[in-house]
């Protein structure tokens, strides 16, 4: 689905992404981990077209997408949810989803019909159901709970019918219960919707539980990649990343 070759990006002499080459097969679910500042979010910005790489190739769905705008990349089927849920405060959940569906179908220019379009209704209900937001459908998105905002953020991305979904810390800032609810949601999306998923996550329990493959970044370069078992046993990873935090290494040890 997505293949990245030798991706490089610097900001004023600081190399934030150093020759990253990674492969994300169709239908896979991959976690990206690494200490703060490892370049995970930059990697997302690079592949989603928000930031242009200095060098390297990004092949998405058999097409080179380097240099395409984020708009064109979204239209090719790569959708993204953000670390801090970024929503539309004055729209209700239903309105925001309907606007996203309308945008995806290329109906944003219609001025003679009324919003929300009748034709978008079924899809919006489906997305509400999928994200478990039916009871919050008519709430303004700015007064939703934190967890529901993150769910809506993902719902908006799903409205694009993506082939690949990028999730930047889907469980950030959530309590333990909410966190597992969210990750179950992500897992069921991956299983049922057949979407290729790439997510950034700090909680090792979650990473080891649901990821098929784990990529570890450090200082902008790939430190290791492999299955959860391989990563767990990788001394370099434990030392460089997990080893710096006693609590984390314990968590890894327990799993």
């Amino acid at each position: 689905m997505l293949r990245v070759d030798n991706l490089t990006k610097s900001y004023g002499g600081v190399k934030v992404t150093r020759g990253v080459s990674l492969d994300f097969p169709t239908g896979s679910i991959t976690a990206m981990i690494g200490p703060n500042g490892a370049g995970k979010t930059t990697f997302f910005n690079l592949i989603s077209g928000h930031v242009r790489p200095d060098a390297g190739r990004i092949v998405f769905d058999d097409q080179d997408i380097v240099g395409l705008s984020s708009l064109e990349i979204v239209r090719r089927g790569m959708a993204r949810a953000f670390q801090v849920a970024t929503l539309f405060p004055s729209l209700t959940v239903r309105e925001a989803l309907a606007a996203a569906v309308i945008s995806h179908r290329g109906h944003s220019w219609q001025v003679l019909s009324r919003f929300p379009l009748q034709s978008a209704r079924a899809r919006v209900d489906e997305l509400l159901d999928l994200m478990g937001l039916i009871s919050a459908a008519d709430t303004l998105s700015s007064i939703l709970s934190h967890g529901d905002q993150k769910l809506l953020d993902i719902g908006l991305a799903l409205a694009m019918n993506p082939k690949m979904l990028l999730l930047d810390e889907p469980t950030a800032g959530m309590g333990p219960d909410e966190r597992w609810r969210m990750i179950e949601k992500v897992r069921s999306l991956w299983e049922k919707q057949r979407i290729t998923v790439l997510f950034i996550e700090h909680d090792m329990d979650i990473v080891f539980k649901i990821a098929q493959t784990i990529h570890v970044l450090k200082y902008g370069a790939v430190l290791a990649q492999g299955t959860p078992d391989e990563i767990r046993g990788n001394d370099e990873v434990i030392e460089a990343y997990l080893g710096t935090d006693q609590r984390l290494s314990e968590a890894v040890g327990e799993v």
Partner: protein
Amino acid sequence: MRSRLRRDIVVGLILFFVLFFLPTLFPKPALRDFLIYVIAYGLLAMSLNLLIGLTGLVAFGHAAFFASGAYTFALLMQSGRTSIPLAMLAAIVGTTVLALVIGAICVRLKNIYFSFITLAFQMFLHSVILTWVSMTGGDQGLQGGIPRPVFFGIDLNNARTLYSFCVVTFVLCLAIMRQVSESPFGYTLRMIRDNPERANFLGVNVVRMKLGVFVLSGAMASVGGIVLALFVSGAYPEFGFWTTSGEAIFMLMLGGTQLFLGPLAGALLLEALNHYITIYTEYHGMVLGVVILVIVLGLRRGIADSLFAYVTRRRRGRRIDDVKRPILQPTKNEPA
């Protein structure tokens, strides 16, 4: 959805009948003249609100399109070769093209840069009007009056007919603007207002959408200019001066930007202050200043918005303060 459409139609009809028959109930020419000013400046303010309230684009140079409509219309009529509807159409189309050119440059800029480049274009147009004396009459304005030939049996030399014509035009423009703001396009503009970056990641072409609403808004402002030119039988450089844009922004501040008819309330209030304070005092600027201060500092938003917030709170017990944006707050940064 259907009920909202029905409600819009009912409100539109009420507005139409009230405006249409007010001069019948109070047959004073002064009231009619006053209402035509409200219509002309109301169109300017409401079209500006498509940018500010709906899309979050704070344009400071909106009077450029008001003046463009007025001058194009007046010049065409003075040439004596066109009928009124044709000249109106040509003035709207001409302004649309102008807005397309100016907009194509402006909408790429954000926040204060956008505001000031629109102002720059307006002052450029104003300078052209002032210096191109042979065409525009310079600072004297277009002299000699605008002929009002009869078309389709409608004689706009009759003051009552002229008024009715203005009301019909006004309500028609309002219907267009209302439909647009309630359409998928209108809601896409709300997405852009709330969060342009996220809208971009949801497949919205932010720049093109902004250009679209910029052009529409310019075209609607030109209708305001046409109405005013038709009424005062001339066109003056003040139509395109920055104070005219400033007045439109005052109207938004007084009336509010959240409700569709808010700017109209602001236009009504500001025109009332302009017309009636001058009768009683020569310190009209001071009274105006105090009223604006009271509303901006006291209510912290336009009158219509305050009323709406109050009613909503009473009805639902829900706070909307933390949801609705304050007047003229710049939007978030967006991707380049």
